[in-house]
Protein backbone atom coordinates (compact mmCIF):
# COMPACT_ATOMS: atom_id res chain seq x y z
CA UNK A 1 0.00 0.00 0.00
CA UNK A 2 1.05 3.63 -0.44
CA UNK A 3 0.93 5.95 2.54
CA UNK A 4 -2.55 7.24 1.66
CA UNK A 5 -3.96 3.71 1.52
CA UNK A 6 -2.17 2.87 4.78
CA UNK A 7 -3.71 5.77 6.69
CA UNK A 8 -7.17 4.95 5.33
CA UNK A 9 -6.65 1.27 6.14
CA UNK A 10 -5.76 2.18 9.73
CA UNK A 11 -9.11 4.01 9.95
CA UNK A 12 -11.26 1.14 8.69
CA UNK A 13 -10.10 -1.84 10.72
CA UNK A 14 -6.60 -2.39 9.34
CA UNK A 15 -7.43 -4.56 6.31
CA UNK A 16 -5.58 -3.69 3.11
CA UNK A 17 -7.35 -1.14 0.88
CA UNK A 18 -6.70 -0.19 -2.74
CA UNK A 19 -7.39 2.94 -4.75
CA UNK A 20 -10.86 2.90 -6.23
CA UNK A 21 -12.36 0.94 -3.33
CA UNK A 22 -15.17 2.54 -1.30
CA UNK A 23 -14.57 2.24 2.45
CA UNK A 24 -16.25 3.44 5.63
CA UNK A 25 -13.68 5.16 7.81
CA UNK A 26 -13.54 6.32 11.44
CA UNK A 27 -12.84 10.03 11.84
CA UNK A 28 -10.50 11.78 14.27
CA UNK A 29 -12.13 15.21 13.91
CA UNK A 30 -15.10 16.73 12.12
CA UNK A 31 -14.77 20.49 11.64
CA UNK A 32 -17.35 23.00 10.41
CA UNK A 33 -17.30 26.79 10.15
CA UNK A 34 -19.85 29.56 9.97
CA UNK A 35 -20.34 29.23 6.20
CA UNK A 36 -21.47 25.62 6.52
CA UNK A 37 -22.31 24.70 10.15
CA UNK A 38 -25.90 26.01 10.39
CA UNK A 39 -26.99 23.94 7.41
CA UNK A 40 -25.38 20.91 9.08
CA UNK A 41 -27.17 21.72 12.36
CA UNK A 42 -30.51 21.79 10.50
CA UNK A 43 -29.76 18.46 8.85
CA UNK A 44 -28.55 16.93 12.14
CA UNK A 45 -31.64 18.03 14.09
CA UNK A 46 -34.42 18.01 11.48
CA UNK A 47 -33.48 15.39 8.88
CA UNK A 48 -31.34 12.93 10.84
CA UNK A 49 -33.30 13.55 14.07
CA UNK A 50 -30.02 12.86 15.83
CA UNK A 51 -29.67 13.29 19.55
CA UNK A 52 -25.97 13.52 20.38
CA UNK A 53 -22.77 14.03 18.42
CA UNK A 54 -20.47 10.99 18.46
CA UNK A 55 -17.82 12.72 20.56
CA UNK A 56 -18.01 16.35 21.81
CA UNK A 57 -14.20 16.44 21.86
CA UNK A 58 -13.95 15.67 18.15
CA UNK A 59 -16.61 17.98 16.75
CA UNK A 60 -15.03 21.40 16.24
CA UNK A 61 -16.84 24.62 15.30
CA UNK A 62 -15.13 27.78 14.08
CA UNK A 63 -16.59 31.20 13.39
CA UNK A 64 -14.22 32.76 10.85
CA UNK A 65 -15.94 33.55 7.53
CA UNK A 66 -18.40 36.19 8.81
CA UNK A 67 -16.81 37.15 12.12
CA UNK A 68 -17.23 39.52 13.84
CA UNK A 69 -20.81 39.19 12.60
CA UNK A 70 -21.03 41.21 9.42
CA UNK A 71 -24.85 41.25 9.14
CA UNK A 72 -27.91 40.44 11.23
CA UNK A 73 -28.19 37.14 9.35
CA UNK A 74 -24.57 36.29 10.25
CA UNK A 75 -25.15 37.24 13.90
CA UNK A 76 -28.19 34.97 13.99
CA UNK A 77 -26.30 32.09 12.41
CA UNK A 78 -23.43 32.56 14.90
CA UNK A 79 -25.94 32.34 17.74
CA UNK A 80 -27.32 29.11 16.31
CA UNK A 81 -23.80 27.67 16.27
CA UNK A 82 -23.22 28.74 19.89
CA UNK A 83 -26.54 27.21 20.89
CA UNK A 84 -25.75 23.91 19.17
CA UNK A 85 -22.30 23.87 20.79
CA UNK A 86 -23.88 24.42 24.23
CA UNK A 87 -26.57 21.76 23.69
CA UNK A 88 -23.94 19.23 22.61
CA UNK A 89 -21.30 20.22 25.15
CA UNK A 90 -18.71 20.80 22.40
CA UNK A 91 -15.25 21.45 23.88
CA UNK A 92 -13.61 23.24 20.95
CA UNK A 93 -15.51 26.26 19.68
CA UNK A 94 -13.55 29.20 18.27
CA UNK A 95 -15.01 32.63 17.75
CA UNK A 96 -12.88 35.30 16.11
CA UNK A 97 -9.64 33.49 16.96
CA UNK A 98 -8.61 32.83 13.38
CA UNK A 99 -9.21 30.87 10.20
CA UNK A 100 -10.47 27.34 10.92
CA UNK A 101 -7.58 25.60 9.17
CA UNK A 102 -4.92 27.63 10.97
CA UNK A 103 -6.57 26.85 14.34
CA UNK A 104 -6.79 23.16 13.46
CA UNK A 105 -3.07 23.14 12.62
CA UNK A 106 -2.10 25.10 15.75
CA UNK A 107 -4.18 23.08 18.19
CA UNK A 108 -5.50 19.76 16.93
CA UNK A 109 -4.04 17.99 13.89
CA UNK A 110 -1.56 15.13 14.39
CA UNK A 111 0.21 12.94 11.84
CA UNK A 112 -1.73 9.92 10.61
CA UNK A 113 -5.15 11.31 11.52
CA UNK A 114 -8.19 11.29 9.25
CA UNK A 115 -10.25 14.47 9.37
CA UNK A 116 -13.15 15.93 7.42
CA UNK A 117 -14.26 19.53 7.44
CA UNK A 118 -17.12 21.40 5.86
CA UNK A 119 -14.64 23.60 4.02
CA UNK A 120 -12.76 22.74 0.87
CA UNK A 121 -9.36 23.85 2.18
CA UNK A 122 -9.42 21.19 4.91
CA UNK A 123 -6.76 19.47 2.78
CA UNK A 124 -4.27 21.88 4.46
CA UNK A 125 -3.74 19.35 7.29
CA UNK A 126 -1.77 17.14 4.91
CA UNK A 127 1.14 19.46 5.75
CA UNK A 128 1.42 17.53 9.04
CA UNK A 129 0.96 14.09 7.45
CA UNK A 130 -2.76 13.84 8.22
CA UNK A 131 -5.39 12.98 5.61
CA UNK A 132 -8.05 15.64 5.56
CA UNK A 133 -10.66 16.65 3.04
CA UNK A 134 -13.60 18.97 2.55
CA UNK A 135 -17.17 17.72 2.44
CA UNK A 136 -20.60 19.29 2.49
CA UNK A 137 -22.96 19.93 5.38
CA UNK A 138 -24.94 16.68 4.95
CA UNK A 139 -21.79 14.55 5.14
CA UNK A 140 -20.67 16.55 8.17
CA UNK A 141 -24.04 16.13 9.89
CA UNK A 142 -23.91 12.36 9.25
CA UNK A 143 -20.33 12.29 10.57
CA UNK A 144 -21.33 14.26 13.69
CA UNK A 145 -23.81 11.50 14.45
CA UNK A 146 -21.89 8.42 13.32
CA UNK A 147 -18.22 9.38 13.77
CA UNK A 148 -17.52 7.74 10.43
CA UNK A 149 -18.12 8.38 6.73
CA UNK A 150 -17.82 6.59 3.39
CA UNK A 151 -15.12 7.60 0.98
CA UNK A 152 -13.40 6.33 -2.10
CA UNK A 153 -9.74 5.43 -1.67
CA UNK A 154 -8.07 7.92 -4.03
CA UNK A 155 -5.29 7.33 -6.50
CA UNK A 156 -2.07 8.98 -5.43
CA UNK A 157 0.04 11.37 -7.50
CA UNK A 158 3.65 11.86 -6.46
CA UNK A 159 5.10 15.34 -6.93
CA UNK A 160 8.86 15.25 -6.42
CA UNK A 161 10.49 18.66 -6.00
CA UNK A 162 14.23 19.30 -6.20
CA UNK A 163 16.49 22.32 -6.51
CA UNK A 164 17.39 25.42 -4.51
CA UNK A 165 14.65 27.94 -3.73
CA UNK A 166 15.50 31.22 -5.51
CA UNK A 167 15.26 34.47 -3.51
CA UNK A 168 11.66 35.79 -3.28
CA UNK A 169 10.24 32.50 -4.64
CA UNK A 170 8.38 30.10 -2.36
CA UNK A 171 5.70 27.49 -1.88
CA UNK A 172 2.95 29.75 -3.23
CA UNK A 173 4.75 30.10 -6.54
CA UNK A 174 5.32 26.33 -6.74
CA UNK A 175 1.71 25.39 -6.02
CA UNK A 176 0.40 27.95 -8.52
CA UNK A 177 2.78 26.50 -11.15
CA UNK A 178 1.61 22.94 -10.31
CA UNK A 179 -2.08 23.94 -10.56
CA UNK A 180 -1.36 25.66 -13.86
CA UNK A 181 0.18 22.44 -15.14
CA UNK A 182 -2.44 20.06 -13.70
CA UNK A 183 -5.41 22.36 -14.52
CA UNK A 184 -8.31 23.04 -12.15
CA UNK A 185 -9.56 19.48 -12.50
CA UNK A 186 -6.30 17.63 -13.16
CA UNK A 187 -6.20 16.02 -9.72
CA UNK A 188 -9.93 15.48 -9.15
CA UNK A 189 -10.46 12.81 -6.48
CA UNK A 190 -6.71 12.19 -6.17
CA UNK A 191 -4.20 12.55 -3.34
CA UNK A 192 -1.26 14.85 -4.09
CA UNK A 193 1.87 13.65 -2.27
CA UNK A 194 4.62 16.28 -2.16
CA UNK A 195 8.11 14.95 -1.65
CA UNK A 196 11.78 15.62 -2.35
CA UNK A 197 14.58 17.75 -0.90
CA UNK A 198 13.00 21.10 -1.84
CA UNK A 199 9.88 20.15 0.17
CA UNK A 200 12.00 18.96 3.10
CA UNK A 201 13.69 22.38 3.03
CA UNK A 202 10.36 24.17 3.64
CA UNK A 203 9.17 25.30 7.05
CA UNK A 204 5.67 24.41 8.26
CA UNK A 205 4.10 27.69 7.08
CA UNK A 206 5.09 27.05 3.46
CA UNK A 207 4.09 23.39 3.67
CA UNK A 208 0.62 24.55 4.73
CA UNK A 209 0.45 26.91 1.73
CA UNK A 210 1.28 24.01 -0.56
CA UNK A 211 -1.22 21.56 0.96
CA UNK A 212 -3.92 24.25 1.22
CA UNK A 213 -4.21 24.72 -2.53
CA UNK A 214 -4.33 21.04 -3.57
CA UNK A 215 -8.12 21.41 -3.84
CA UNK A 216 -7.63 24.04 -6.56
CA UNK A 217 -6.55 21.19 -8.85
CA UNK A 218 -9.53 19.18 -7.60
CA UNK A 219 -7.54 16.98 -5.19
CA UNK A 220 -9.12 15.19 -2.27
CA UNK A 221 -6.02 15.01 -0.06
CA UNK A 222 -2.62 16.63 0.13
CA UNK A 223 0.16 14.79 1.92
CA UNK A 224 3.65 15.70 3.09
CA UNK A 225 5.62 13.15 5.12
CA UNK A 226 5.94 14.37 8.71
CA UNK A 227 9.71 14.75 9.13
CA UNK A 228 11.81 16.37 11.87
CA UNK A 229 10.47 19.85 10.91
CA UNK A 230 6.87 18.67 11.39
CA UNK A 231 7.64 16.84 14.64
CA UNK A 232 9.45 19.91 16.01
CA UNK A 233 6.39 22.05 15.16
CA UNK A 234 4.17 19.62 17.07
CA UNK A 235 6.50 19.54 20.07
CA UNK A 236 6.59 23.35 20.16
CA UNK A 237 2.79 23.35 20.08
CA UNK A 238 2.78 21.00 23.10
CA UNK A 239 1.21 18.30 20.96
CA UNK A 240 3.63 15.42 20.43
CA UNK A 241 2.35 12.04 19.25
CA UNK A 242 0.40 10.93 16.24
CA UNK A 243 1.34 8.12 13.95
CA UNK A 244 3.87 8.52 11.16
CA UNK A 245 3.06 6.22 8.25
CA UNK A 246 5.26 5.43 5.24
CA UNK A 247 4.93 3.77 1.84
CA UNK A 248 5.31 -0.01 1.68
CA UNK A 249 7.92 -1.30 -0.75
CA UNK A 250 5.21 -2.18 -3.27
CA UNK A 251 3.52 1.25 -3.04
CA UNK A 252 1.82 2.31 -6.27
CA UNK A 253 1.32 5.84 -7.54
CA UNK A 254 -0.91 6.71 -10.45
CA UNK A 255 1.83 8.94 -11.79
CA UNK A 256 4.82 11.03 -10.80
CA UNK A 257 5.58 14.64 -11.64
CA UNK A 258 8.96 16.27 -11.17
CA UNK A 259 9.83 19.90 -10.54
CA UNK A 260 13.18 21.62 -10.21
CA UNK A 261 12.44 24.96 -8.56
CA UNK A 262 15.90 26.45 -9.10
CA UNK A 263 14.69 28.46 -12.09
CA UNK A 264 11.13 29.16 -10.90
CA UNK A 265 9.93 32.76 -11.21
CA UNK A 266 7.23 34.30 -8.99
CA UNK A 267 3.88 33.10 -10.35
CA UNK A 268 0.55 34.86 -10.89
CA UNK A 269 -2.90 33.29 -11.34
CA UNK A 270 -4.94 35.73 -13.40
CA UNK A 271 -8.74 36.08 -13.57
CA UNK A 272 -10.98 34.14 -13.28
CA UNK A 273 -9.53 30.68 -12.77
CA UNK A 274 -6.81 29.41 -10.42
CA UNK A 275 -5.16 27.40 -13.22
CA UNK A 276 -4.72 30.52 -15.36
CA UNK A 277 -1.08 30.77 -14.25
CA UNK A 278 1.99 32.44 -15.69
CA UNK A 279 5.36 33.95 -14.75
CA UNK A 280 5.17 37.39 -13.16
CA UNK A 281 6.99 38.84 -16.16
CA UNK A 282 3.74 38.41 -18.15
CA UNK A 283 1.82 40.57 -15.69
CA UNK A 284 4.23 43.24 -14.43
CA UNK A 285 2.87 46.75 -14.56
CA UNK A 286 -0.84 45.90 -14.29
CA UNK A 287 -2.33 48.54 -11.96
CA UNK A 288 -4.17 47.26 -8.89
CA UNK A 289 -6.54 48.95 -6.45
CA UNK A 290 -6.44 46.66 -3.43
CA UNK A 291 -3.94 44.16 -2.04
CA UNK A 292 -4.64 41.47 0.53
CA UNK A 293 -2.12 39.56 2.61
CA UNK A 294 -3.78 36.82 4.64
CA UNK A 295 -6.11 33.79 4.44
CA UNK A 296 -5.50 30.12 5.27
CA UNK A 297 -3.14 30.17 2.29
CA UNK A 298 -0.74 32.92 3.38
CA UNK A 299 -1.77 34.58 6.64
CA UNK A 300 0.95 33.01 8.78
CA UNK A 301 3.75 34.69 10.73
CA UNK A 302 6.34 33.80 8.10
CA UNK A 303 4.16 35.36 5.37
CA UNK A 304 3.80 38.58 7.36
CA UNK A 305 7.55 38.51 7.97
CA UNK A 306 8.26 38.27 4.22
CA UNK A 307 5.97 41.23 3.56
CA UNK A 308 7.48 43.28 6.38
CA UNK A 309 10.94 42.55 5.00
CA UNK A 310 9.92 44.36 1.82
CA UNK A 311 7.64 47.05 3.31
CA UNK A 312 9.39 48.08 6.54
CA UNK A 313 10.64 51.64 6.32
CA UNK A 314 8.78 52.28 3.05
CA UNK A 315 5.30 53.56 2.19
CA UNK A 316 2.73 51.84 0.01
CA UNK A 317 1.56 53.65 -3.11
CA UNK A 318 -1.07 56.31 -2.50
CA UNK A 319 -3.34 54.71 -5.10
CA UNK A 320 -3.87 51.41 -3.24
CA UNK A 321 -5.29 49.90 -0.06
CA UNK A 322 -3.26 47.16 1.61
CA UNK A 323 -5.20 44.87 3.95
CA UNK A 324 -3.23 42.49 6.18
CA UNK A 325 -5.05 39.84 8.21
CA UNK A 326 -3.13 37.46 10.48
CA UNK A 327 -4.61 33.96 10.13
CA UNK A 328 -4.89 33.50 13.90
CA UNK A 329 -4.75 35.31 17.21
CA UNK A 330 -1.44 33.60 18.06
CA UNK A 331 0.10 34.82 14.80
CA UNK A 332 -1.22 38.32 15.49
CA UNK A 333 0.32 38.37 18.98
CA UNK A 334 3.64 37.08 17.72
CA UNK A 335 3.74 39.61 14.89
CA UNK A 336 2.91 42.42 17.32
CA UNK A 337 5.64 41.34 19.74
CA UNK A 338 8.27 41.22 17.00
CA UNK A 339 7.35 44.61 15.55
CA UNK A 340 6.03 43.25 12.24
CA UNK A 341 2.52 44.58 12.78
CA UNK A 342 3.89 48.03 13.65
CA UNK A 343 6.12 48.06 10.56
CA UNK A 344 3.21 47.07 8.31
CA UNK A 345 0.93 49.76 9.80
CA UNK A 346 3.71 52.36 9.40
CA UNK A 347 3.96 51.40 5.73
CA UNK A 348 0.27 52.09 5.26
CA UNK A 349 -1.40 48.70 5.85
CA UNK A 350 -4.79 48.21 7.53
CA UNK A 351 -4.73 45.26 9.95
CA UNK A 352 -7.83 43.04 10.01
CA UNK A 353 -9.09 40.79 12.80
CA UNK A 354 -8.06 37.13 12.47
CA UNK A 355 -10.42 35.30 10.12
CA UNK A 356 -11.11 34.68 6.43
CA UNK A 357 -11.27 38.42 5.78
CA UNK A 358 -10.93 39.59 2.16
CA UNK A 359 -10.36 36.05 0.83
CA UNK A 360 -14.00 35.15 1.21
CA UNK A 361 -15.68 38.50 0.90
CA UNK A 362 -17.86 37.82 3.96
CA UNK A 363 -16.52 40.78 5.91
CA UNK A 364 -14.34 43.71 4.81
CA UNK A 365 -12.25 44.41 1.74
CA UNK A 366 -14.96 44.03 -0.91
CA UNK A 367 -13.92 45.34 -4.33
CA UNK A 368 -16.05 47.47 -6.61
CA UNK A 369 -16.85 47.44 -10.33
CA UNK A 370 -13.74 47.51 -12.50
CA UNK A 371 -11.35 47.20 -9.55
CA UNK A 372 -8.37 44.82 -9.36
CA UNK A 373 -7.42 42.88 -6.25
CA UNK A 374 -3.98 41.28 -5.90
CA UNK A 375 -4.22 38.73 -3.12
CA UNK A 376 -2.37 35.93 -1.35
CA UNK A 377 -5.68 34.01 -1.09
CA UNK A 378 -6.40 30.77 -2.90
CA UNK A 379 -9.24 31.66 -5.28
CA UNK A 380 -9.73 34.24 -8.01
CA UNK A 381 -13.24 33.26 -9.06
CA UNK A 382 -15.33 35.99 -10.64
CA UNK A 383 -17.22 37.93 -7.97
CA UNK A 384 -15.75 36.03 -5.01
CA UNK A 385 -14.63 39.22 -3.25
CA UNK A 386 -17.28 41.68 -4.40
CA UNK A 387 -18.24 42.93 -7.83
CA UNK A 388 -18.40 40.33 -10.64
CA UNK A 389 -16.98 43.13 -12.78
CA UNK A 390 -13.83 43.19 -10.63
CA UNK A 391 -10.69 41.12 -11.19
CA UNK A 392 -8.73 38.98 -8.75
CA UNK A 393 -5.05 38.04 -9.21
CA UNK A 394 -3.37 35.48 -6.93
CA UNK A 395 0.27 35.72 -5.85
CA UNK A 396 2.76 35.19 -3.04
CA UNK A 397 3.25 37.47 -0.02
CA UNK A 398 6.49 38.78 -1.58
CA UNK A 399 4.69 39.78 -4.80
CA UNK A 400 1.85 41.41 -2.88
CA UNK A 401 4.29 43.41 -0.74
CA UNK A 402 6.40 44.51 -3.73
CA UNK A 403 3.28 45.49 -5.65
CA UNK A 404 1.88 47.50 -2.73
CA UNK A 405 4.90 49.81 -3.04
CA UNK A 406 4.26 50.60 -6.69
CA UNK A 407 0.49 50.15 -7.04
CA UNK A 408 1.21 47.78 -9.93
CA UNK A 409 1.99 44.08 -10.14
CA UNK A 410 5.72 44.11 -9.40
CA UNK A 411 8.48 41.54 -9.23
CA UNK A 412 9.93 41.29 -5.70
CA UNK A 413 13.25 40.23 -7.22
CA UNK A 414 13.65 43.81 -8.48
CA UNK A 415 13.08 45.53 -5.14
CA UNK A 416 16.29 46.95 -3.72
CA UNK A 417 16.94 45.83 -0.16
Amino acid at each position, binding site marked *: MNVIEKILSAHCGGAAVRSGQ*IVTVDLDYVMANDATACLAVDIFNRDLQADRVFDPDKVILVMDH*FTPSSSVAAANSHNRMRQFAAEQGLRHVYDGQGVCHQLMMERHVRPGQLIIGADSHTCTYGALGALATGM*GSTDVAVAWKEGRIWMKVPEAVRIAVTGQWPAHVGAKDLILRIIGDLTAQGATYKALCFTGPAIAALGMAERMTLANMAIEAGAKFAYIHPDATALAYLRAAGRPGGHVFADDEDACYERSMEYDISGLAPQIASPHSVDNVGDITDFEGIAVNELFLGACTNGRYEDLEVAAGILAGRKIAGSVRLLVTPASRDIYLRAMASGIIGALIESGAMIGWPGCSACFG*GTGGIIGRGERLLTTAN*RNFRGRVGSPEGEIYLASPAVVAASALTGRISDPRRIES
Partner: protein
Amino acid sequence: MIQGKAIKFGHNIDTDQIIGARHLSLPAIADMAPLAFEHHGNFTTHFAPGDILVAGENFGCGSSREQAPAVLKQRGAGAIVACSFARIFFRNAVNLGLPLIICSQTDEIGELDCLEIDGGCLHDMTTGRRYTIEPLPPFIAGIVDSGGIIPHLRGKKAQA
Protein backbone atom coordinates in the same frame (compact mmCIF):
# COMPACT_ATOMS: atom_id res chain seq x y z
CA MET B 1 -37.82 10.35 -17.21
CA ILE B 2 -36.50 13.92 -16.89
CA GLN B 3 -37.58 16.57 -19.43
CA GLY B 4 -36.64 20.23 -19.65
CA LYS B 5 -34.90 22.87 -21.68
CA ALA B 6 -31.13 23.26 -21.62
CA ILE B 7 -29.60 26.16 -19.69
CA LYS B 8 -25.99 26.30 -20.86
CA PHE B 9 -22.78 26.99 -18.94
CA GLY B 10 -19.08 26.77 -19.76
CA HIS B 11 -16.17 25.01 -18.04
CA ASN B 12 -15.08 25.35 -14.39
CA ILE B 13 -18.36 26.75 -13.07
CA ASP B 14 -17.43 27.41 -9.43
CA THR B 15 -19.69 27.36 -6.41
CA ASP B 16 -19.23 31.11 -5.87
CA GLN B 17 -21.06 31.65 -9.17
CA ILE B 18 -23.84 29.25 -8.17
CA ILE B 19 -24.46 30.96 -4.82
CA GLY B 20 -22.34 33.93 -3.72
CA ALA B 21 -20.40 33.73 -0.44
CA ARG B 22 -22.19 36.67 1.11
CA HIS B 23 -25.53 34.85 0.91
CA LEU B 24 -24.39 31.82 2.92
CA SER B 25 -25.38 33.31 6.26
CA LEU B 26 -29.03 33.61 5.22
CA PRO B 27 -31.18 31.42 7.48
CA ALA B 28 -32.45 28.81 5.02
CA ILE B 29 -31.93 27.36 1.55
CA ALA B 30 -35.30 28.82 0.56
CA ASP B 31 -33.91 32.31 1.30
CA MET B 32 -30.80 31.68 -0.83
CA ALA B 33 -32.50 29.93 -3.77
CA PRO B 34 -33.73 33.11 -5.54
CA LEU B 35 -30.06 34.24 -5.65
CA ALA B 36 -28.78 31.16 -7.50
CA PHE B 37 -26.60 32.10 -10.50
CA GLU B 38 -27.52 35.73 -9.87
CA HIS B 39 -24.93 37.01 -12.37
CA HIS B 40 -25.86 34.55 -15.15
CA GLY B 41 -28.51 36.24 -17.28
CA ASN B 42 -29.49 33.08 -19.15
CA PHE B 43 -30.33 31.33 -15.89
CA THR B 44 -32.13 34.27 -14.29
CA THR B 45 -34.13 34.93 -17.49
CA HIS B 46 -34.95 31.48 -18.81
CA PHE B 47 -34.70 28.90 -16.02
CA ALA B 48 -37.96 27.24 -15.04
CA PRO B 49 -38.46 24.28 -12.69
CA GLY B 50 -37.56 21.03 -14.45
CA ASP B 51 -34.96 22.63 -16.71
CA ILE B 52 -31.61 20.93 -17.16
CA LEU B 53 -28.26 22.66 -16.57
CA VAL B 54 -25.74 21.72 -19.26
CA ALA B 55 -22.06 22.49 -18.70
CA GLY B 56 -18.49 21.62 -19.68
CA GLU B 57 -15.69 20.28 -17.49
CA ASN B 58 -15.37 20.52 -13.70
CA PHE B 59 -18.85 21.81 -12.83
CA GLY B 60 -19.12 22.87 -9.17
CA CYS B 61 -15.42 23.44 -8.48
CA GLY B 62 -14.32 25.52 -5.52
CA SER B 63 -15.81 25.57 -2.07
CA SER B 64 -17.48 22.74 -0.16
CA ARG B 65 -20.70 24.73 0.22
CA GLU B 66 -23.60 22.30 -0.04
CA GLN B 67 -25.77 25.37 -0.46
CA ALA B 68 -24.72 25.27 -4.15
CA PRO B 69 -26.48 22.03 -5.15
CA ALA B 70 -29.16 22.71 -2.52
CA VAL B 71 -30.30 25.99 -4.12
CA LEU B 72 -30.40 24.33 -7.55
CA LYS B 73 -32.51 21.51 -6.13
CA GLN B 74 -34.74 24.02 -4.36
CA ARG B 75 -35.26 25.85 -7.67
CA GLY B 76 -36.36 22.55 -9.22
CA ALA B 77 -33.42 21.75 -11.51
CA GLY B 78 -34.27 18.52 -13.33
CA ALA B 79 -30.67 17.42 -13.62
CA ILE B 80 -27.17 18.74 -14.27
CA VAL B 81 -25.41 17.38 -17.34
CA ALA B 82 -21.67 18.05 -17.54
CA CYS B 83 -18.50 16.60 -19.05
CA SER B 84 -17.21 16.23 -15.48
CA PHE B 85 -17.96 17.37 -11.93
CA ALA B 86 -15.75 18.60 -9.10
CA ARG B 87 -15.48 16.06 -6.28
CA ILE B 88 -17.17 17.85 -3.37
CA PHE B 89 -20.02 19.19 -5.50
CA PHE B 90 -20.58 15.71 -6.91
CA ARG B 91 -20.77 14.21 -3.43
CA ASN B 92 -23.06 16.96 -2.13
CA ALA B 93 -25.45 16.58 -5.08
CA VAL B 94 -25.53 12.81 -4.62
CA ASN B 95 -26.30 13.29 -0.92
CA LEU B 96 -29.19 15.60 -1.85
CA GLY B 97 -30.53 13.26 -4.55
CA LEU B 98 -29.97 15.83 -7.33
CA PRO B 99 -29.43 13.88 -10.58
CA LEU B 100 -25.97 14.42 -12.12
CA ILE B 101 -25.28 13.17 -15.61
CA ILE B 102 -21.83 12.78 -17.10
CA CYS B 103 -21.76 13.25 -20.88
CA SER B 104 -18.66 14.22 -22.87
CA GLN B 105 -20.51 15.92 -25.76
CA THR B 106 -22.34 18.71 -23.98
CA ASP B 107 -20.78 21.28 -26.36
CA GLU B 108 -23.13 19.98 -29.08
CA ILE B 109 -26.22 20.91 -27.05
CA GLY B 110 -27.63 24.38 -27.73
CA GLU B 111 -29.03 26.94 -25.31
CA LEU B 112 -32.72 26.24 -24.64
CA ASP B 113 -32.72 22.94 -26.61
CA CYS B 114 -35.44 20.58 -25.39
CA LEU B 115 -33.83 17.64 -23.59
CA GLU B 116 -35.11 14.32 -22.40
CA ILE B 117 -33.17 11.95 -20.12
CA ASP B 118 -34.38 8.42 -19.91
CA GLY B 119 -32.28 5.59 -18.48
CA GLY B 120 -28.88 5.56 -20.13
CA CYS B 121 -29.75 8.03 -22.89
CA LEU B 122 -29.82 11.81 -23.24
CA HIS B 123 -31.99 12.92 -26.17
CA ASP B 124 -31.71 16.44 -27.61
CA MET B 125 -35.17 16.74 -29.16
CA THR B 126 -34.28 20.06 -30.81
CA THR B 127 -31.40 18.60 -32.84
CA GLY B 128 -32.54 14.98 -32.82
CA ARG B 129 -29.18 13.81 -31.47
CA ARG B 130 -28.91 11.07 -28.86
CA TYR B 131 -26.06 10.72 -26.37
CA THR B 132 -25.03 7.81 -24.21
CA ILE B 133 -24.51 8.81 -20.61
CA GLU B 134 -21.95 7.33 -18.24
CA PRO B 135 -23.67 5.25 -15.57
CA LEU B 136 -22.93 6.12 -11.92
CA PRO B 137 -21.16 3.45 -9.82
CA PRO B 138 -23.82 1.22 -8.17
CA PHE B 139 -23.04 2.45 -4.62
CA ILE B 140 -23.57 6.08 -5.70
CA ALA B 141 -26.59 5.27 -7.90
CA GLY B 142 -28.19 3.60 -4.86
CA ILE B 143 -27.95 6.84 -2.87
CA VAL B 144 -29.37 8.98 -5.73
CA ASP B 145 -32.19 6.50 -6.32
CA SER B 146 -33.13 6.66 -2.63
CA GLY B 147 -33.47 10.46 -3.00
CA GLY B 148 -30.25 11.26 -1.12
CA ILE B 149 -28.06 9.97 1.71
CA ILE B 150 -30.57 10.60 4.50
CA PRO B 151 -33.49 8.63 2.98
CA HIS B 152 -30.85 6.06 1.97
CA LEU B 153 -29.65 5.70 5.58
CA ARG B 154 -33.24 5.55 6.82
CA GLY B 155 -34.01 2.84 4.25
CA LYS B 156 -30.98 0.82 5.36
CA LYS B 157 -32.00 1.16 9.00
CA ALA B 158 -35.57 0.02 8.20
CA GLN B 159 -34.15 -3.04 6.41
CA ALA B 160 -31.86 -3.96 9.33
